[in-house]
């Protein structure tokens, strides 16, 4: 049997396809404006890599920011649950998950594989992966590199503005003053780590701590977070995939609870078509 999880993040779309035992194929690609109708293609592409047909997949779960309207998914599950399950699958001993995504930052407490508590910041971009993207962009550096570069600093610059937009300006100001790029980057990463730490600290950080989501790919962020927390954090080999992985794991679980007949019936009804899955506006007409 085959199961798929598709995590349509605000920034990056991730797909994981599994059989009963292991991951057999994955895909990571930007969610960018032009890809927002292409969830079905992302899934097909992932399947193609291992020569699977769409009908062969028994259960598909969509998660992430754009999960709400994926017509071919058999279920939608929030990314909080999916990340938790994905990380727990890789690190069974995990107690605290810090997920730094493109649009939000979450802290999740896990106890015996069950979610105990979570906290989420999504009102201000200042504590999210978007912050890093904007910095990289402002400095004309690749997102992949800024973390490493920041590690070279011996004297992190003081960044006083918290707002992402203003931090961007502050970078320019510091550059004009002749501050070294690595020091600026170190200052920014430190500030980001502090904000994330304060937020997640509210649910009490306990060992083992796993850092996941796109932010986990950033070495600088990881280091400064570890410094705040006081001990090392774990990171999956590919931290971007934990949400999709969790979705795939859940897919297997759900499929396991259904009869073959029901599964077949469900598969028949799937619609593999292009529909925009971003529909955040469903309650913007409240009170009516």
């Amino acid at each position: 049997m085959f199961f798929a999880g598709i995590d349509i993040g605000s920034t990056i779309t991730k797909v994981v396809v599994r059989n009963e035992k292991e991951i057999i194929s994955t895909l990571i690609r930007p969610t960018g404006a032009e890809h927002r109708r292409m969830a079905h293609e992302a899934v097909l592409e992932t399947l193609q890599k291992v020569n699977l047909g769409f009908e062969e997949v028994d259960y598909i779960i969509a998660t992430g920011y754009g999960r709400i309207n994926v017509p071919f998914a058999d279920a939608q599950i929030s990314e909080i649950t999916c990340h938790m399950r994905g990380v727990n699958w890789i690190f069974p001993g995990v107690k605290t998950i810090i997920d730094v995504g493109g649009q939000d930052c979450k802290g999740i407490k896990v106890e015996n594989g069950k979610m105990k508590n979570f906290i989420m910041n999504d009102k201000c971009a200042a504590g999210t992966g978007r912050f890093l993207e904007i910095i990289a962009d402002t400095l004309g550096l690749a997102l992949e590199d800024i973390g490493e570069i920041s590690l070279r600093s011996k004297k992190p610059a003081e960044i006083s503005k918290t707002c992402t937009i203003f931090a961007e300006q502050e970078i320019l100001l510091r550059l004009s003053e002749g501050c070294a790029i690595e020091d600026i980057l170190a200052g920014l990463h430190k500030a980001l780590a502090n904000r994330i730490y304060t937020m997640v600290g509210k649910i009490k950080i306990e060992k083992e701590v796993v850092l996941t989501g796109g932010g986990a790919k950033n070495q600088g962020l990881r280091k400064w977070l570890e410094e705040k927390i006081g001990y090392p954090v774990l990171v999956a080999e590919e931290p971007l995939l934990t949400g999709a992985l969790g979705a795939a794991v859940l897919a297997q679980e759900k499929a396991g609870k259904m009869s073959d007949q029901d599964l077949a019936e469900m598969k028949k009804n799937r619609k593999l078509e292009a529909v925009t899955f971003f529909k955040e506006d469903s309650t913007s007409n409240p009170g009516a």
Partner: protein
Amino acid sequence: MNELKGLARAAQIYLDPQQRARELKAEGKKIAGYLCCYPPVEIMTALGYVPIRILGDMNEPITEADAYLPTVMCAFYRSILDVAMKGRYDFLDAFIGAHACDGAERVSYIWRSYLKSPCSFYLDVPHSNHAAAIDFFKVQLNYLKDELEKTSGCNFSQEALREAVKLYNKQRSLVRSLYKLNRQDPPLVSGSEMLQVMVSIMCIPAEEGNSLLEEVIEEVSNRSAGPGQKKGRILIWGSLIDNIAMTKLIEDCGLNIVIDDTAIGTRSFWVDVDETSDPFEGLAVRYLDKIVCPRTFRDTKGTRSEDLDNRFKYLKIMAKEWNVNGVYFNIIRNCDIHGYEIPEVRDYFEDIGIPVLVIEQDYSTTALEPLRTRFQAFAENIG
């Protein structure tokens, strides 16, 4: 007058809660607006006023109020002052402010510094249920009566007050009956429907409210398709909710709201007024002592766990009788009263194995959507 009945009528009133009051005003009735659940509606009714609960508006961006209130305060009360400054409550004949919490207290003050009604009274509600406090509150209620009497055009009579007590006790018992219909699984009334009914009965005369409740009870008792079964049965605790955008969002995410302990909900109706020989006695005890809201301090007696039971036992009972498997703490940001209470109530529920979701919300419909993921994750977790 109006053909709509039951839930449909409630939905209609909810859309413009002050409309009925304006109609009555045009017919020559006097209208009294009050804050929070502490000013006794019985006294207003006994003096010929139609009492209406003053509400905010989550749909209306707060602009005018910023000239009078800082942005760091409870957005519900900021919104109240905002819509009032924009004229929504200009028709009131009496304004009754109350010391429910600091927010309510200061807004009462500021309201009457700028908006003048023919009659206005600030009801000082003591902080505790000490014996001296109850007596003091009784004195306060008498002052309220005197003040209202001056402009009501009718004379106060104990008899009228006793009648009003009966009328509202009946309302309370109807509300409790309605909520009881949600003990079954799936519940018969959705959280949004319930909220529409609660808002409605707070904004129309008690007799009308009572018939509305009777209609609704009959309607839903016979219904075959209610809100349907969802993943979780939850209790909502905390600051109030007065807009169905909020309850709809929660229900959309797979949660049945079966019971609540909030100020526009059971907290205003759960307990009756005792029919004491001096009606003010019964009123003072009911409003100050029998309404259980974290704004009233209850003495610590004995051990800590006894203290906790003294403060929150009713929640445990609610949770059990309505068979809930999750609790949502609806905290309007900057609400100190509920804010300080979060850790204790959370632990209290978690001790009996019921998971809790805490959200500090901003009292604005535009800020709701980002909460969706949280409710969904909570539903997945308890479902």
